[in-house]
């Protein structure tokens, strides 16, 4: 029967055929509001329903008791179809008939009045309206309207709404009533739950009816809940202790899980006593639930419930394994999983679900696939394909923890199967355990919980215990002895031992008490499985290795893909590894590499080295086969860098030799390789190496080699990177050391060329092994590194090198501050002060400038310098203090001695400043300007130092040279007799005591000494000691000699020869000159030229300015200027013997107005003592201090005139009187 709600049509007036079409157009009901079990309104879409007539055979065929069972299938509403065109007819015929129909309260009904009247026929329409009004009055109640009117000729939209709502009302009411009824029944039954009369079947019928009813009404949630409750109830009833019940699952085809097919078996087939058989019933319930969940569009829940169900039910099957066919459980799980996967994927569109739900779904798919895969592998192992299964951790973990099937008795070998046994035997023998690359010998991981051989034979009931113990109680329990007993002539490889394959025997039937051999077990299992498995397709996938691998691949891929989609990358990647293994086995290396790389990348990123060590050799092998040199090398390096405990040293050596072999083989190109994990390096402990700007240095780096043996490198270089900037602007620094890296710690030094200032951290270590150029970024931590290297990029790397900013490394200053003696060999001291820097091997270039000569014949003296700040207290320095080393100077170069490299030293070297000009003395007549620059001499110094003389210090220093004395002269007195007292003043110019021993003055012509005439001073005071900066005077008595040659007098010089000695300290300044030759007298000679001027001639005229007659001068007031002119002596020259003198008055015309003759002749007698006065009247024009007019005598030379006052002078002129401007008073 279809799962529809039935709506009966009571066709009172034979109208059904007329309206059938339009009525059936209303179902399924598009929107219906129903009440769910909790009496809450629920809107249901597309409620399926079907109209049938009350006369329908389907309603009649049921027996009464059946009607009780299938009550939920009874019609939900009755539609009474009537028409009437006459009131009387309605009253008399129709109304009683309708009353009869609707009096049955059990039914929900409503009346549809069909109006046949044509809209154009007013009469008929009116009539129909009247009748309908009557109908409404009779059948509508206050609570409920049960009538509606259908216009045959064009029903309006309102009618259909009305119709729908009435129909839904009816359905809802019916449903409510029935649900209530069922619930009461169920409650009643539940109360009897623990009484003996309780019968699960009855309960089930009620429950399922209710569920079914809900399902029909599209109330799937409620229906699902009923099934869930039913399942719970069943679980309780089935686990309750009681009589033994049949489990089921023994029918043909039961091995194929029916958990998605509720109609797989009729319920009547599985009923047993008062309860259902568990095997079938549980699947049935699950199938019903799954069906509802699919209807609710919840395939994810199906998958989730399904997985749980399969796992749970698998356990249940295990409990009943005794009674079930061989490996029934495994087969069932496989088919169940596959079924679930198929149906859920087809129902899942993944469109409108959240990402988490999506992930969950794929995870469940992955779980189902992987469950299926494990069981499938178990079956395959049983029938002898175990040798083909990769012994990876995942397979091993899955299978070795999964117990063997436990049938009541292990299947025995069928007769006439010797050929098959042979076949299996052959397969086992042919399969060789794969030789791993690098001779890696590892115990293969087990794929079995315990030995299959032992397990199978133990379960053979008829095998005697004695035999068993004989077979297995060997020393190590591994069955080795048993194997050797059975096959003494066979070389017992490890694998053979485990599979325990004996020689193929010709005997076909086993003696009853002989234990089965492994190949026999396989054959027996295969036969038993053929019995168990009903699906030929499934069986065929176990029929041959190829088929098995095909299916195995399918399942593995399915699991891997789904895990990847669910973001369970670890699960997914592990299975990728299995796929890779299969590809590898089939020589599909390209694909294998791809998958293996994924696996290795994951393990290596997450540092699970043990797992990585398992797959990495496989990857390496693939890469080797594919000739992927770079990849292969990288894999080898990775293998080497794994924890050394994971591989034996022999294996590690094999890795290394492989790397070396490849590196030196004929690779076309340089292969770059990152060996960061294998070769690590760090700066040596302690503070970083500090270098001065421009200095090279040696940086030692600790390099840890992860190679098991010494490895020879072609080159090794280091890159440093400045910590301030990111770029590795520095080119690689090659190591000069020998290039053999020992395993473990190596210290390698690098010569670092001068670097820019800044601090540097280690960048990368690069090098070459053959054609392999490797690069390592691995920084190991300081100190001894554990066996496993640890890379931390989080720690800030420590600078290994600091190059300081350029700074003064040395300072050279002159040691003397005061002037040295000119033209004498003098010591110049240089203070060479290293500033925290060794001057070892330094060379000092001294380049004397112009007019300065270094006496290379002399030795340079170097001594320890004791600055005034330094204390001579320490014994060391005092010992050093006295030391003076003499070293030669060559071409202006001095090599600094080693002892002087770290201490401040004083370097003395002799120089002679040359000044060819003759020093001149100073006199009042010839004042001299002395320039400091004259005595300056420059010395250019250049100090080359540093390890490679890379540091240069240059400086030019100025040294001041001077004469010992500054000489000036003056005439102290002039006697009447013409003698002159000439004082020569010697002023010491140096900071040293001068001893004047003798002075001699060679007078120029025109002068002559008085007295002895030897040119010595008047008094002999020698030796005369002149202290620094002090003066001494020496008096000479001279007189003018009578020469007339003025030119000669003007140009000649007198020479003053001073013999002197000097006692000074070279550290302060001038000192006694270095003796050029031994025995040189210490007496020095200083010559200086003096120019003496003859005294001025005697004046013959005197001009005196006479005081003014008035007290004060005023502007505009006339004043008489008077000069008196007196002849001092009679002129000797007859030429000027006239007694007239020309005078001239000079006045500034702006200041003075001269009111008289400005020039003229006055008469003055030639006799000595004659005098006269010249008066000139002037008017001052401006007030203030002004020069008065001057009287000049142009004809008489100025030298012959003695003036009083001698020089120009000023007079005070007052401003004019206030009221009398320019008016001369009358008085």
């Amino acid at each position, binding site marked *: 029967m279809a799962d529809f709600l039935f709506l009966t049509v009571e066709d009172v007036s034979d109208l059904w055929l007329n309206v059938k079409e339009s009525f059936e157009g209303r179902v399924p009901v598009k929107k219906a509001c129903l009440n769910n079990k909790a009496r809450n309104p629920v809107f249901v879409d597309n409620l399926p329903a079907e109209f049938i007539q009350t006369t329908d055979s389907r309603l009649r065929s049921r027996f009464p008791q059946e009607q009780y069972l299938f009550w939920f299938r009874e019609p939900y509403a009755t539609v009474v179809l009537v028409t009437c065109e006459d009131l009387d007819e309605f009253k008399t015929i129709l109304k009683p008939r309708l009353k009869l129909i609707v009096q049955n309260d059990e039914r929900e009904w409503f009346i549809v009045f069909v109006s046949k009247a044509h809209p154009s026929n007013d009469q008929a329409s009116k009539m129909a309206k009247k009748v309908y009004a009557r109908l409404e009055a009779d059948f509508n109640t206050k609570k409920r309207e049960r009538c509606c009117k259908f216009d045959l000729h064009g029903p309006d939209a309102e009618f259909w709404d009305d119709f729908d709502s009435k129909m839904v009302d009816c359905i809802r009411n019916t449903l409510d009533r029935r649900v209530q009824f069922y619930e009461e029944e169920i409650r009643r039954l539940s109360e009897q739950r623990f009484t003996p009369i309780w019968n699960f079947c009855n309960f089930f019928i009620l429950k399922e009816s209710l569920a079914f009813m809900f399902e029909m009404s599209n109330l799937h949630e409620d229906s699902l809940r009923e099934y869930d409750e039913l399942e719970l109830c069943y679980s309780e009833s089935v686990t309750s202790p009681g009589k033994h019940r049949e489990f089921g699952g023994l029918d043909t085809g039961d091995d194929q899980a029916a958990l998605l097919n509720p109609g797989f078996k009729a319920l009547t087939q599985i009923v047993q006593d008062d309860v259902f058989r568990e095997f079938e019933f549980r699947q049935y319930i699950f199938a019903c639930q799954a069906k509802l969940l699919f209807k609710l569009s919840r395939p994810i829940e199906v998958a989730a419930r399904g997985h749980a169900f399969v796992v749970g039910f698998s356990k249940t099957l295990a409990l009943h394994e005794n009674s079930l066919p061989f490996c029934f459980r495994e087969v069932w799980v496989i088919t169940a999983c596959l079924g679930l996967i198929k149906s859920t994927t087809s129902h899942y569109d993944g469109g409108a679900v959240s990402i988490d739900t999506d992930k969950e779904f794929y995870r469940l798919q992955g779980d189902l696939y992987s469950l299926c895969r494990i069981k499938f592998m178990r079956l395959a192992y049983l029938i002898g394909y175990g040798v083909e299964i990769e012994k990876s951790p995942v397979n*091993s973990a899955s299978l070795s923890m999964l117990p063997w099937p436990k049938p009541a008795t292990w299947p025995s070998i069928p007769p006439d199967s010797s050929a098959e046994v042979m076949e299996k035997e052959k397969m086992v023998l042919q399969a060789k355990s794969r030789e791993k690359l690098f001779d890696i010998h590892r*115990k293969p991981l087990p794929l079995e919980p315990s030995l299959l051989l032992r397990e199978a034979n133990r379960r053979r009931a008829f095998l005697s215990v004695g035999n068993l113990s004989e077979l297995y109680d060997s020393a190590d329990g591994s069955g080795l002895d048993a194997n050797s007993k059975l096959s003494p002539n066979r070389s017992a490889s490890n694998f053979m031992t485990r599979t325990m394959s004996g020689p193929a025997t010709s005997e076909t039937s086993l003696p009853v008490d002989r234990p089965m051999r492994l190949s026999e077990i396989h054959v027996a299992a295969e036969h038993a499985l053929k019995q168990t498995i009903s699906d030929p397709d499934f069986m065929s996938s176990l029929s041959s290795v190829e088929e098995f691998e095909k299916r195995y691949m399918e399942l593995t891929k399915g699991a891997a893909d789904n895990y990847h989609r669910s973001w369970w990358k*670890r*699960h997914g990647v*592990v299975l990728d590894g299995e796929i890779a293994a299969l590809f590898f086995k089939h020589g599909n290396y390209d694909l294998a590499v791809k998958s293996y790389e994924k696996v290795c990348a994951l393990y290596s990123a*997450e*540092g699970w080295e043990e797992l990585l060590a398992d797959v990495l050799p496989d990857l390496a092998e693939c890469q080797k086969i594919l000739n992927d040199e770079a990849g292969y090398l990288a894999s080898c390096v990775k293998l080497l860098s794994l924890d050394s405990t994971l591989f034996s040293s022999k294996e590690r050596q094999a890795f290394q030799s492989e790397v070396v072999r490849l590196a030196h083989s004929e690779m076309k190109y340089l292969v770059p390789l990152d060996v960061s994990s294998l070769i690590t390096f760090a700066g040596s402990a302690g503070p970083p190496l500090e270098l001065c700007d421009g200095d090279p240095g040696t940086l030692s780096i600790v390099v840890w080699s992860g190679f098991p043996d010494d490895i020879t490198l072609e080159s090794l270089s280091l890159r440093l990177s400045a910590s301030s900037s990111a770029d590795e602007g520095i080119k690689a620094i090659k190591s000069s050391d020998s290039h053999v890296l020992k395993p473990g710690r190596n210290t390698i030094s690098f010569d670092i060329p001068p670097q820019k200032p800044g601090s540097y951290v280690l960048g990368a270590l690069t090098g070459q092994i053959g054609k392999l150029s490797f690069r390592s970024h691995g920084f190991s931590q300081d100190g001894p590194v554990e066996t496993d290297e*640890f890379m931390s990029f989080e*720690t800030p790397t420590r600078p290994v090198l600091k190059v300081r900013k350029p700074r003064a490394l040395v300072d050279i200053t002159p040691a003397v501050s005061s002037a040295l003696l000119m033209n004498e060999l003098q010591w110049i001291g240089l203070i060479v002060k290293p500033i925290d820097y060794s001057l070892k091997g330094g060379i000092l270039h001294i380049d004397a400038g112009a007019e300065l000569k270094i006496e290379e014949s002399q030795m340079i003296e170097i001594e320890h310098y004791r600055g005034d700040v330094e204390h001579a207290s320490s014994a060391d320095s005092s010992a050093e203090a006295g030391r003076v080393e003499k070293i030669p100077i060559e071409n202006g170069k001095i090599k600094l001695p080693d002892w002087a490299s770290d201490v401040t030293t004083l370097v003395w070297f002799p120089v002679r400043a040359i000044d060819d000009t003759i020093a001149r003395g100073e006199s009042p007549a010839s004042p001299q300007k002395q320039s400091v620059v004259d005595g300056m001499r420059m010395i250019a110094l250049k100090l080359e130092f540093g390890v490679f003389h890379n540091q240069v210090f240059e400086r030019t220093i100025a040294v001041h040279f001077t004469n010992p004395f500054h000489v000036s002269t003056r005439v102290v007195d002039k006697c009447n007799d013409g003698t002159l007292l000439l004082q020569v003043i010697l002023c010491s110019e140096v900071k040293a005591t001068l001893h004047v021993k003798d002075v001699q003055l060679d007078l120029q012509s025109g002068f002559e000494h008085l007295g002895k005439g030897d040119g010595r001073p008047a008094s002999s005071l020698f030796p005369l000691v002149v202290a620094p900066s002090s003066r001494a005077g020496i008096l000479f008595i001279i007189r003018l000699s009578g020469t007339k040659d003025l030119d000669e007098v003007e140009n000649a010089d007198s020479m003053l020869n001073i013999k002197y000695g000097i006692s000074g300290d070279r550290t302060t300044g001038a000192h006694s000159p270095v003796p050029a030759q031994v025995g040189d007298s210490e007496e020095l000679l200083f010559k200086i030229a003096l120019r003496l001027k003859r005294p001025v001639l005697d004046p013959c005229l005197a001009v005196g300015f006479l005081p003014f007659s008035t007290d004060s001068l005023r502007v505009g007031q006339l004043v008489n200027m008077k000069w008196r002119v007196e002849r001092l002596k009679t002129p000797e020259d007859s030429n000027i013997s006239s007694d007239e003198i020309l005078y001239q008055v000079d006045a500034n015309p702006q200041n003075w107005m001269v009111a008289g003759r400005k020039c003229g002749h006055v008469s003055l007698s030639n006799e000595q003592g004659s005098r006269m006065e010249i008066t000139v009247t002037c008017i001052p024009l401006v007030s203030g201090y002004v020069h008065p007019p001057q009287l000049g005598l142009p004809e008489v030379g100025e030298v012959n005139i003695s003036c009083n006052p001698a020089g120009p002078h000023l007079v005070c002129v007052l401003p004019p009187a206030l009221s009398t401007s320019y008016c001369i008073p009358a008085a």
Partner: protein
Amino acid sequence: MASTACFVIVSKNDIPIYEAEVGSAPKKEDLAHQHQFILHAALDVVQDLAWTTNAMFLRSVDRFSDLVVSVYDSVVHTRFMLLHDPRSDDGIKSFFQEVHELYIKIFLNPLYLPGSRITSSHFDTKVRALARKYL
């Protein structure tokens, strides 16, 4: 003491930084391999689960055949993972809490770099002692 127990500390980058087989069962090398595999795969579950709860003790997050993986989310996403036979949570929780204390001490060591391998033998001894006590 449980027959099988494998304890691993996994850093936040999923790198194992401490491993110990603390079960009483005789140590088999192939088993260690499997344990590693199971624990590693369980990280998939942990990564999903860790963000759904505030609790540090995540209880048993994964089962593999008869073995259970329990996880404790310690500081800075360092995870303690224990593979063990099915048993009650209490002992495991206490074990984890005490190891947590130990780990904090290691963590506070200025010479220990967070995320690096724990090589302290003292730590190892203590963990094994705790395993004997609680598992």
